[in-house]
Every structure is written in C-alpha cells, then in structure tokens.
C-alpha cells in the first residue's frame, strides 16, 4: 500500500494473497531444444505418452527469440524426478523419442500452480511460458477497465471521499452503492456509530441518501480552506489520525466522544457499509412494495399519476418521495416490467473510502454486492486482503470482485488547485443540478449520473 501516485489507478485485489516474486513453487521437467519443423508431430506424440496432467497451465513449447531474428523452440519432454537430477529417470517411450530425434535433454524449472494474477504470470513466464486465465466468474473489470468505466469508477470514488469528510474535521468511512448499468447512486452513507439520528424516523430513511447529497454539497464547499490535509496522509502510517473511521477501529467505540451530545442515539455497529445496505433495502421496499411473486401494479400507477393530478401543495409534499420513484419510472420507461425488482444488491457496486472490516465485508457478501472498490487499506481489521480475504473464501455462497482505487494526491487534498477544480466539477455542478431537477421536475427525474467529465 501507501504509494502516492500522480494518476488514478484501479488495482484488482485477488482472491489469494500475491506470492512474492521468485517465491512461487516450481517443479523440475525434462526439456529439449527441437527443430521447428518437427514441433507439431513431437508435441502431439508427447501429449499422448507423457501428458502434463497437473501442469495444465504450463505450455508445452517455449519459443525464444535470439538476436538476428532467429527463433529457437524447446519442448517439455516429461516431468523429472524431484530428488533425481539424472536424465535416466526418463520413461521408456519418451527415451525412444529422444533417441529417434537425437534430442539432448536438460532439466529446467516450471511453475507448479497456475498464476492468480497478471503479475504472477509475468513472473512465471521468466522460467517457462504458462497460460493465464483471469477469474472467470464473469465480473467486469478483472481483466481491465475501459476508459469510460475507469472514469465512472473514479467519479464515484471521488464522491465517496467527499462524503467521508465532515464539517468538524473528523474523517469517517463513507459508502456509496451504485447501479453501474445506469451509473446511478442507489444509496450512500457515512459511519453512524456516534450519531445515529432516529428522531426523524421513517421519512428520513426514505430520503436520507438524497439529503446526504445536499449535506455533502454544502460541507465540501465550506471545507475547501480547512480540509486540505485531512486525507493527504491517509495512505501513510499515520493512521492514528483517523480514529473516527469505524472500520479502522471497530473495537474502540466505547471510547469515542458523542457528537452532538444527547440529541442522537449511537450504535457501535452502524458502520457506513451497513447503513448504506439498510438504505438500499429501504429504497427497495419503497420502490417495489409488492413481494416477488405478487406484483402490486396498482401501487405503481397511483404514484405515477398522483403528482400530475394533485394540488401544488400535494405535489410539493410528494417531491422527495418521487425522488425514490425515479428508478421505477426508469424501469417502466425502459420497457422492462416492474418485476425486474433487484434481488438485494445483485449487480450493484459499492465504493468505500477504507477497506471494510470483517463485519461489513461479510454483510456485503450477504447482500450480494457485485464489486467492491476501496481507496485505503485497513491494516487493523480489513477483511478484503489485509487481515482476512473474504473474496477468496470458497465456502461462501457469493463472491464479489474487489478493487483498490489509488487516488492521486490532488483528490486527497493537497496544495494545488486541482483539488478545488475537481470538487467543483462534481459536487457543485452535478449535485446541484441534480437537486434542481428534483425540485423542478418531480415526474421526470434524471438519475444522478456521475459522468466522465467529473
């Protein structure tokens, strides 16, 4: 971790811990240089008599380029005995081939197991070429992101970072759940372990994610002058400055100060990811009130019609409610039936500023999140590579892909004005225009799109 970079970068966090270069296990094989013209015949014959059963990732033939444009082919004859460096351990029919073609066999090393990352694969190929198959559970991004997708990832991560900052200078973790197919924010939340405001009960649940946008908008403007060092040290060892980040210090809740005192409940488990899951579930219940089997179409029609027929006062009251309805309208307009109700967070991504703790990471398994993006590692309690690695726990019934997003210094807040520019472009322009849209056009809400220009 911990490198400052000049540009945004997305790194896949693999299911297995990376093996340090040069420490990958190897096995010995017998190989020989061969004439290119006999390569086909030889490989076919060798695959029959000495198949590389447990080395399917290893290529049978190695092609070397020499100076002057010459190429040299070498082929694996068979496995060599581990404790025996002699060539006479060769099986009978392989020896016949060696004799027939007058090959001179030598012992060489190949990687024992298939590479689990591109880096490992590159390392393996220095010994002998292998093939590399990235995880095939069909999640976009593992094999790389398009320019457009990268920009979208960066925009949402920037949004999460903004959300993590607050007026009082305390940094917390923030979570943003996104439907990547329409680049729409489904829910967003901050840590609420010190101030869980239950006073406004249900209506606040319905609108909370959208109020957050406004909160974020205002606080980012007021913080421009004071927060430029807040996150700049986040990726250094100075983690002690982030005691408000609940996933970093999950066991410290009883020591933390209440803010503000008396007005709110507190809850040691209301980490940002859990609050965001709660908010997305509330949205789901609101948008798709019927059960999966019995779709309540009448409810949908009522909500689409009421604002246009109702009085202005009534319309105003319904505005925030309609914010939540836009996804439903989208689905209807898009020609899909309402029965396209999501199953939990299937297909959704979550952006977290800090790698989630074990509790949050497992909650995201339960909620069927498709991809997790986080900016900073969590050496204390991180469950996506730091302390545990839930994405690699085979027994779980769901697996998400995990990515780390490296932030350039200007996003975390440093001296230059780029930071301010970036912030303006997303929070002030896009969010303000989004809120404006909600206020003026309750019926045809355009989902918040954090586009590539952000």
């Amino acid at each position: 971790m911990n490198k400052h970079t000049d540009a945004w970068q997305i790194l896949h966090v693999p299911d297995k811990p990376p093996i340090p270069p040069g420490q990958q296990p190897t096995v010995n094989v017998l190989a020989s240089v061969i004439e290119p013209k006999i390569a086909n015949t030889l490989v076919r014959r060798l695959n029959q008599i000495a198949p590389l059963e447990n080395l399917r990732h290893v290529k049978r033939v190695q092609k070397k380029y020499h100076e002057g444009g010459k190429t040299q082919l070498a082929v694996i004859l068979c496995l060599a005995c581990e404790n025996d460096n002699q060539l006479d351990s060769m099986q009978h029919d392989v020896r016949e081939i060696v004799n027939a073609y007058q090959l001179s066999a030598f012992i060489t090393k190949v990687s024992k197991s298939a590479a689990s990352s591109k880096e490992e694969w590159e390392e393996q190929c220095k010994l002998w070429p292998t093939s590399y198959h990235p995880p095939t559970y069909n999640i976009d991004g593992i094999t790389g992101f398009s320019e457009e997708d990268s920009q979208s990832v960066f925009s949402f991560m920037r949004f999460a970072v903004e959300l993590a900052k607050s007026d009082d200078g305390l940094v917390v973790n923030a979570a943003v759940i996104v439907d990547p197919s329409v680049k729409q924010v489904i829910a967003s939340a901050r840590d609420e372990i010190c101030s869980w405001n239950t006073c406004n009960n249900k209506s606040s649940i319905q609108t909370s994610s959208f109020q957050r946008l406004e909160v974020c908008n205002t606080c980012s403007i007021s913080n421009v002058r004071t927060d430029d060092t807040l996150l700049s040290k986040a990726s250094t060892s100075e983690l002690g400055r982030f005691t408000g980040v609940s996933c970093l210090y999950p066991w410290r809740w009883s020591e933390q100060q209440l803010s503000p005192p008396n007005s709110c409940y507190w809850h040691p488990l209301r980490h940002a990811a859990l609050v965001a899951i709660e908010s997305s579930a509330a949205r789901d219940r609101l948008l798709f009130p019927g059960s999966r089997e019995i779709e309540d179409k009448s409810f949908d029609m009522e909500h689409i019609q009421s604002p246009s027929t109702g009085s202005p006062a009534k319309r105003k009251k319904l505005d925030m409610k309609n914010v939540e309805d836009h996804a439903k309208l989208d689905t209807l307009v898009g020609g899909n039936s309402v029965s396209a109700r999501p199953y939990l967070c299937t297909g959704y991504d979550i952006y977290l500023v800090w790698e989630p703790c074990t509790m949050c990471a497992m909650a995201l398994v339960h909620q069927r999140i498709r991809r997790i993006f986080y900016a900073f590692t969590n050496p204390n309690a991180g469950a996506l590579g730091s302390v545990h690695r839930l994405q690699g726990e085979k027994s779980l019934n769901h697996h998400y892909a995990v990515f780390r997003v490296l932030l350039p210094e200007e996003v975390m807040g440093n001296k230059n004005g780029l930071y301010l520019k970036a912030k303006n472009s997303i929070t002030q322009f896009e969010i303000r225009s989004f809120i404006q849209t909600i206020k003026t056009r309750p019926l045809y809400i355009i989902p918040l799109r954090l586009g590539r220009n952000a």
Partner: protein
Amino acid sequence: MESPGADFSPDTLAFMELALEQAKLAFDSLEVPVGCVIVEDGKVIASGRNRTTETRNASRHAEMEAVDVLLEDWQKNGLSKLEVAKKLSKCHLYVTCEPCIMCAAALSILGVKEVYYGCTNDKFGGCGSILSLHLGCSELLKSGGIPQGKGFKCIRGIMASEAVSLLRTFYEQGNPNAPKPHRPLTHQATH
C-alpha cells in the same frame, strides 16, 4: 450430534429453548429459521430472529435484531457508552445456529462474554467453521498498541438437532426469497 441434554445445564437448555422459539417465529414468517436470546445475570434481556426477507436487508440476522433492541433500551434508560460496554461484557448470547462471519465480528466488536450455539454453519460460520473470530486476534495485539479484536468463549452443540431440523424443513420447502435459479435449496444455511 449430541443428544439433547447430554452435557448442558438445565439453564443452558432452557435459554436455547427460548432461542428455538424465536427461530420458529422466523419460520412462521417465511424467514430462514434462526433465533437468539441475550442473557444478563441469568435473565433474558433481549431476543431476536432473522428478518432478512421482510426487510430485504440480508444483514438483519437474529443477533443483529436482538442487539438493536438492547442498545435502544439501554440508551432510553440513559446508560452511557462505558456503562453499555460494561453490561455487554457480562452478556451471554444463545443462538440456534453458529453466528456467521458478520455476526461473529459484530459480537467481537460489542465485546459479549459468551456465545452458546446449536448447529454449526459450514458455509458462513465465524466461530470455528470458516473463520475463528471468537478467538480474537492476539497477533495484532503484540505488533501494535491499538486495541484489537476481542475474543469470546464459545460453546457449541446445544440442541443442535432441533436447530438443524428446523432449517432442513425450511429449505426443503424452498426459500421463497431466493433468486429463481437457486431454488429449491437444501441443507444450505444462509445464516
């Protein structure tokens, strides 16, 4: 699997019986049947059951439900954070199925004293099956000065067969909330 009452005190069995009642309530509401009770000084002070289907929030496991009730009650009674932490450190949790990784991590964060569970959870268990979060993380304690994961005592196998048969009956009916390709499920605890 142990026969009922094999090695456990009448109190332990009685508390697990109450947890099973919660699990049955969940079953009747078409929820994955897992239930729990929280006990302080020999008295049940909270109970909870799975509500993942109703809430569409897959993190609403029995343990999380019970903890929410408790925290709200204590705060209404004006208890401070430190008082709550102290009370939690004396609490015992009885749950019909091994806490999943999420709940085990939550119980460690809260700092409960002991956890009694029925059947093991081979897919998601966080108290010995997949991870062993009840052991805490002593290695990290040594390496840094930061307070790290707290462990808790775990006792398993209390009325496990009752807990399993409830889960089995539920999954044999098919989980009505599961996405279509996954249905019907058998022997798969989603807890």
